[in-house]
């Protein structure tokens, strides 16, 4: 499998290099869908320039990157393009290895359940075979690397790519089973942008499952492991934050990075839901609504954990998607990350109900974003409502996509245990409905 992966990587690198040299690079770099105030390359350059002039980069409201990014780019700023290409490749490789391991896990679990006779007799067509699962890791790497969203994100040199790399490594470490590395990478991911903290739950569930610890509140080993993992995570987070303090000898970065993420002061339009709402809200209510919107990101963790405790990797996927949709400054780079996982659930295709409409919706919206932006900002014949409508449609498409996959996944699980041909009590055919 290495050879096709290398080919894919080469193709991706070529595409990116070609785009870097073309005139599209400047155009893509300033698109608001790709570069948000949190991860725009212009701001990184600005922050480093301020640092060279002797001023703290967090003193204005321009720079919202973490100190580790400052450190990384202080030495690598001339090779920025190379750095971003390498991060994309690293992400793809990490996802490839992670999904390879995950497939093994899935297959082992399936074998166990078949031997334990947990499956209904007529579900032969739903059972997954190693044959069909063979190319999934390559597809994942392919989808990630050649996804137009990722390519645009890389060409724009948005630090979202670095964030994605850290999350990919976290997923790799979790699936490999190493609690320590997983905690370290999760701490790094949380440090980089605040929202991956919600990935703590699926990672914990996965590691518990891997060590065969049952998830019961009364079980002592459950609490022991949870405490261990939480302690590892929190300690590494604290260590990283304290280390960042020593870079500039100030705690300025905390309000600039985390305060900025949480309080959403910058209302530049992006593909998210925050900007329009807060642009027209009275000052009086903005605190309340900021809290409501932020809670929306973290809110789904517990219900999903209850529902999906047997399937933590799917939970991780849904959680990643929720972060990308509801975070305060989403970009297409975040969307690309969870879309890379879609080949893993390709066996759910027969249960997806709206996939055609949703894919059309997403493609159409992605194409309309620059059009309506042009009409609004440059031609003046549209206004912000048009752009917001497309944002809304795009986000609705994403949410429906995730809920469609969620429904399909649960439906398949139900069929596996209850058989494919469901009948009601009187013998007629039954339909499965997600309540």
């Amino acid at each position, binding site marked *: 499998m290495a050879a096709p992966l290398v080919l894919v990587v080469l193709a991706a690198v070529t595409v990116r290099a070609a785009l870097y040299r073309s005139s599209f690079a400047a155009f893509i770099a300033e698109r608001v869908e790709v570069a948000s105030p949190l991860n725009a390359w212009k701001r990184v350059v600005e922050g480093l320039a301020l640092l*060279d002039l002797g001023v703290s980069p967090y003193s204005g409201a321009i720079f919202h990157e973490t100190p580790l990014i*400052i*450190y990384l780019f*202080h030495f690598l700023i001339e090779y920025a393009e190379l750095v971003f290409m390498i991060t994309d490749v690293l992400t793809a490789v990490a996802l490839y290895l992670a999904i390879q391991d995950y497939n093994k896990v899935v297959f082992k679990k399936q074998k166990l359940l078949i031997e334990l006779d947990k499956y209904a007799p007529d579900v032969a067509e739903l059972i997954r075979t190693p044959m069909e699962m063979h190319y999934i890791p390559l597809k994942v790497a392919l989808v990630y690397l050649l996804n137009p969203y990722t390519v645009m994100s890389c060409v724009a040199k948005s630090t979202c790519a670095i964030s994605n790399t850290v999350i990919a490594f976290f997923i790799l470490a979790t699936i490999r089973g190493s609690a*320590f*590395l997983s905690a370290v990478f999760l701490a790094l991911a949380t440090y980089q942008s605040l929202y991956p903290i919600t990935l703590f739950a699926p990672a914990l569930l996965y590691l518990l499952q891997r060590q065969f610890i049952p998830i019961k509140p009364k079980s002592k080993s459950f609490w022991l492991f949870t405490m261990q993992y939480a302690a590892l995570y929190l300690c590494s987070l604290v260590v990283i934050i304290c*280390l960042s303090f020593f*870079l500039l000898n100030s705690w300025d970065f905390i309000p600039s990075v985390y305060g900025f993420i949480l309080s959403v002061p910058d209302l530049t339009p992006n593909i998210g839901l925050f900007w329009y709402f807060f642009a027209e809200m009275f000052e009086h209510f903005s605190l309340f609504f900021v809290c409501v919107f932020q809670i929306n990101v973290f809110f789904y963790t517990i219900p999903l954990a209850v529902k999906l405790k047997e399937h933590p990797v799917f939970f991780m996927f849904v959680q990643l998607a929720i972060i990308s949709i509801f975070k305060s400054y989403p970009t297409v780079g975040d969307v690309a990350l969870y879309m890379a996982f879609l080949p893993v659930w390709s066996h759910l295709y027969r249960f997806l109900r709206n996939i055609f409409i949703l894919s059309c919706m997403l493609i159409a919206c992605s194409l309309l974003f620059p059009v309506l932006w042009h009409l609004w900002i440059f031609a003046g014949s549209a206004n912000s409502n048009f752009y917001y409508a497309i944002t809304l449609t795009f986000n609705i498409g994403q949410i429906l996509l995730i809920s469609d996959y969620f429904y399909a996944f649960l439906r398949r699980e139900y069929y596996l245990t209850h058989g494919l041909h469901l009948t009601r009590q009187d013998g007629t055919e039954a339909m499965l409905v997600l309540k």
Partner: protein
Amino acid sequence: MPCVSNVLFAQCTRCSWGSGPARCPDACNLLGKGPVPCKACGEPRLIEDQAEQFFKSGHTNNWAVLVCTSRFWFNYRHVANTLSVYRSVKRLGIPDSHIVLMLADDMACNPRNPKPATVFSHKNMELNVYGDDVEVDYRSYEVTVENFLRVLTGRIPPSTPRSKRLLSDDRSNILIYMTGHGGNGFLKFQDSEEITNVELADAFEQMWQKRRYNELLFIIDTCQGASMYERFYSPNIIALASSQVGEDSLSHQPDLGIGVHLMDRYTFYMLEFLEEVHPASQTNMNDLFQVCPKSLCVSTPGHRTDLFQRDPQNVLITDFFGSVRKVEITTETISLDRNLAGFESELPKDVLATEPLKYADQLPVAQIIHQKPKPKDWHPPGGFILGLWALIIMVFFKTYGIKHMKHIF
């Protein structure tokens, strides 16, 4: 016989009785009675005393600040109110140079005006208060609270033309007329901002302290207008309002040809009253207070005279509404003070300029060129780098076991 002129009590120079301006019912020598003896000491008064008293009268010039604060076509009546008062005031003698007219909207040239270039104040279009001699000083969006207060207090940018300034002094009697939409304690300007009664009172106090008025007549025709003069605390102010707090001032009559109400009741009856006044009228303030009883106005007009030092009975309408020049005809000669000192001005000696500075001396070019500091390159502190790499190495070894150490070293 009642005196028909405005001769004041002459201050008797011998016993200095009769200080202050007061109305004299019988010290009039226009009727040929001859010099009247001083009431206190009985000595006949000199013509010089009377002439001196002439120069000690209350005010020497009149100003008017007429403000309409509402815009939009349906507030036609406020513009008509202000223009009616403007017309009366001009007819009674105050020139345009002494009138600051602020109209927040243009009704005469409003596209909805069926009779363009006219503003009528009486139904059946009897009285056009607009004409080609109306000089509007502040128009349309220039009528703001800020501009109004700046006009009153005199804090105007130096580029403001004279027609937009209130150049009053401490011998000016000022008439301030305001109309528009108001409430309890405020008056609305342009549908977007308000002036409160406190601000207005403070502005008048500033005027008093800067000696910008001698006496002030404040008339306001809005809903709950009495609230606007509640807070005045400066002396020499008479205030009139068209309605009390809690009452609305009502408009007079709509004109079906134009389609809007033409005037407000209070100003309508005030205008009728003023039409009877001519420059030599003796009508006084008490008549103005009664100009609009409740039966005609529906609201209860109010007034406030506690800050005023003279008796309103003795205050003539033309003291405020007109610019009456007091003219006394006498056949006797009056000699002014002989002891006026000559004004000698000494010009300061010119300071001769030394030879002019050369350009190069004024601008130290050499210093400027070398002034740019070299940009310091920032390096991350050593402690940080050490800490970071130590952590990375620790994580590496923790994950992959210590046994790999020997492969490195």
